[in-house]
């Protein structure tokens, strides 16, 4: 399963932190710092994988990808396919791009709870729900719409599910 998804910038500031197994706050920060230390020291044009055994136990790996100023990091164990996780990150970033139209670091900083919602539509409890970014966008749009039209739940519950079911 996927153990954690972390987005941080090239200064090591966390922008999105999601652990699928509980870690105390202090431990989370320690992990983020140690990951940043490892990623900083890696040259360009090397593989995207790093062993993460020391922090997450045996056979865990960390895969990272850099997009502009941001590191996207996924930590997972041996029940996941490393290369598929790379694709998953691509899907995540594409989805962010669709939701924020040309996503940049600031979008993620100021809309971190929307980013969480997007992530929750892709990964649930450490398992992948959806690999199609258009499906994810549809679901997230549904949530946003509902949030802006709070009365619709009471008034037209059926119509919403019908709307979604298209």
């Amino acid at each position, binding site marked *: 399963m996927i153990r954690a998804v972390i987005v941080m910038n090239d200064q090591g500031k*966390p*922008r*999105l*932190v*999601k652990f*699928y197994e*509980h870690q105390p*706050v*202090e431990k*989370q*920060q320690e992990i983020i710092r140690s990951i940043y230390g490892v990623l900083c020291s*890696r*040259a360009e*044009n*090397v*593989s*995207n*994988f*790093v*062993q993460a055994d020391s922090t997450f136990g045996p056979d865990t790996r960390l895969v990272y990808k850099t997009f502009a100023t941001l590191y996207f990091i996924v930590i997972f164990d041996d*029940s996941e*396919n*490393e*290369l*598929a996780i*790379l*694709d*998953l990150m*691509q*899907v995540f970033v594409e989805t962010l791009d669709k939701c924020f139209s040309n996503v940049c670091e600031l979008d993620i*900083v*100021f809309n*971190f*709870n929307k980013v*969480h*919602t997007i992530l*929750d539509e892709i990964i*649930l*409890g450490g*398992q*992948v*729900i*959806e*690999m*199609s970014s*258009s*499906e994810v966008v549809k*679901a997230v749009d*549904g*949530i946003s719409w*509902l*949030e802006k039209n*709070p009365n619709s*739940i009471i008034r037209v*519950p*059926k119509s*919403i*599910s019908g709307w*979604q*079911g298209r």
Partner: protein
Amino acid sequence: MNPFSSGTRLRDMIRAIRACKTAAEERAVIRKECASIRAAISDNDQTFRHRNLAKLMFIHMLGYPTHFGQMECLKLIAAPGFAEKRIGYLGLMLLLDERQEVLMLVTNSLKQDLNQNNQHIVGLALCALGNICSADMARDLAPEVEKLLQFRDPNIRKKAALCSIRIIKKVPDLADNFVDPVVSLLKEKHHGVLLTGIQLCTDLCKVNEEALEYFRKKCTEGLVRSLKDVVNSPYVPEYDISGIADPFLHIRLLRVLRILGHGDADASDCMSDILAQVATKTESHKNAGNAILYECVGTIMSVEDNGGLRVLAINILGRFLSNRDNNIRYVALNMLMKAIAVDAQAVQRHRATILECVKDLDASIRKRALELVYLLVNESNVKPLMKELVDYLEVSDQGFKGDLTAKICSIVEKFSPDKIWYIDQMLKVLSEAGNFVKASVWHALVVVITNASNLQGYSVRSLYRAIQISRDQETLIRVAVWCIGEYGDMLVNNIEMLDIEEPITVTESDAVDVVEIAIKNHSLNLTTRAMCLIALLKLSSRFPSCSQRIKEIIAQYKGSLLLELQQRSVEFNSIIGKHKNIRSALVERMPVLDEATYNGRRARSASAAVSTSLEFASNLSNGVIARTDVAPLVDLLDMGADEPVPPCSSGGNFLLDLIDVDMPSSSSQSDVLLDLLSAWSPPPQKGSPTTDIILLNQDDKPSVNALDILSSSMVPSGEAKPTGPYMMDLLDVFGPNPATPEESGPTFPPIVAYESSALTIIFNFSKRPENPQMTDIEAMFTNKSSDVYTDFVFQAAVPKVNA
């Protein structure tokens, strides 16, 4: 309403935090925000509750404590509005964990939301449950989740399936309830639902043996058909990732087939066709295609034997290994590690390519490849492999040398076909990366050299050559200096030349030069320089022509600020100056260390077990017991704490080397006590620091103290006490009457090891005629009190000797 919280919006707070230039400023801003949020919480402010919680989530991400907001999550979840609920659930997943009791309070709200009609609300609840569900909640809410597996909306079915995974992981007993729903999920046409259904099936198989059997019988064919459909399906733009239709579904299907086929020939047989098709037909230009191939290889490796498929799989890995993409090479190495257990022979075929990967620019790949090479080494290929690795050691970057050196040393020790090869390889490693070699490794090398009597000359000459080239590798210097000290004559006179060697001309003064350069090198460690002094002392006797020069070098350290060097210098100086008659005997070659004993001890010290039970003490041979007591003395007289050759099974001989100032031949002696005695035969020479220390036992009081200090410095635990008196006794018994034991031959008189008003312990010694190195010690305990002793434990502390 709180005046603070009304003011700042979430956006403003983030802006304020981002504007902070220092960590202290950031802390101040956050402190202020937290204070206002706390105030709002205590006012039970409702308007801004969800905004405050959003702020808290941001603060939490930055690593500040936010526990005070936990109850707010629960309140928001119970709120009717969707926006509040959403933030509430987000907060629940981020700020709380399953161990907190607060979580119990949320079960009811979750239950209500799971029964809502609105799919988004149900979705939120499922998502939260899937992330933080505890065992109790799993039991309470499993029926709801089970129902939702048939919900009309596919999004909910997906989430419910993943949520079920969490539930069965928390409470494996519930697995049975999910078996039937999974069978229908596996028939789904919707990609996402099928994907999650397969995932649930995989996890059910992992937690429940019966479920595995059931799925194997009922679903293998269906899953194989699904895989066929996916592989042959026309282009689906929605799930397309770089030209491959739904690679993730491929991967999940292959993964579940891997579990179903593992250990079951029928199931494996059923899937072999489609596996072959995937392995041969999949496009491998893109990452997604390679991901499928990689998964397929993994499945082929774990299903039951099918020779043809295995060859195909290993060939795919071979192709991966030569791929230009680093990620592909990395995963190939990963998979080869697993494949080695299945088919080592096939993996061996790719040895050359793997070896190339050890030299890769990428640290992750290098590390993996090195681990793999380590697994590939066997007796037949060790020589060529080692040549490659050692050659690479020269050019590898500093960060990697540590790992590489450790692996090389371990391979050399494990697989060396003969001693000369072992010595050659170790010398190469020492010259290239001596600073990365662990102490135990070069200690073992010294042991091997002392044992290989026909290779000592060769070793010292090779070391001499090596040290001329690389002068900054500390461990190389240590070994070289030690060997030159011991076998200096062999170096100078080309004794025991091997056919493969080229003769070299080294004068006595050249040999002394090497040691002198080393001792004058201030960047070297104190231990190394102290070893140089010993080497010089030894050489002064071996090279009479250089004796004066050596004396001068040693004398330079009389004023050294380093106590260790100063003391040795003063002592050695007096040995050279005043005790010419005993010098040659004093610096005899070190006795051969028993390799088996050394290795045994090395293994023992690796497991860090210094047993203190009586059993242990009484089972040991004399040598080891002698070591117990002698080691501190030896250290004081001759060696630094981490000298390469700690007294071993021949501890007795060792003492003899140092103390036996009278006997010309050390080999005739095997007894500690005789040696001790012989020290007393000549009139003690006052004024010599060496003898002073040996003479400890002339005066009772200081010897107790001195030995106590010594032993306590040697024994890491607080159990130094028994050693002190025991050692004192050992020396004491013989001190007053040097003549007796000489007459009684090689037997020990009994020793009173311990005496008090309540207990006496007497040790009786006896030699075994067939093995004079072994001494049996019989301990006799006498209860002198009127009480009955129960649970009597005798502990003997054995100083740990750094080996």
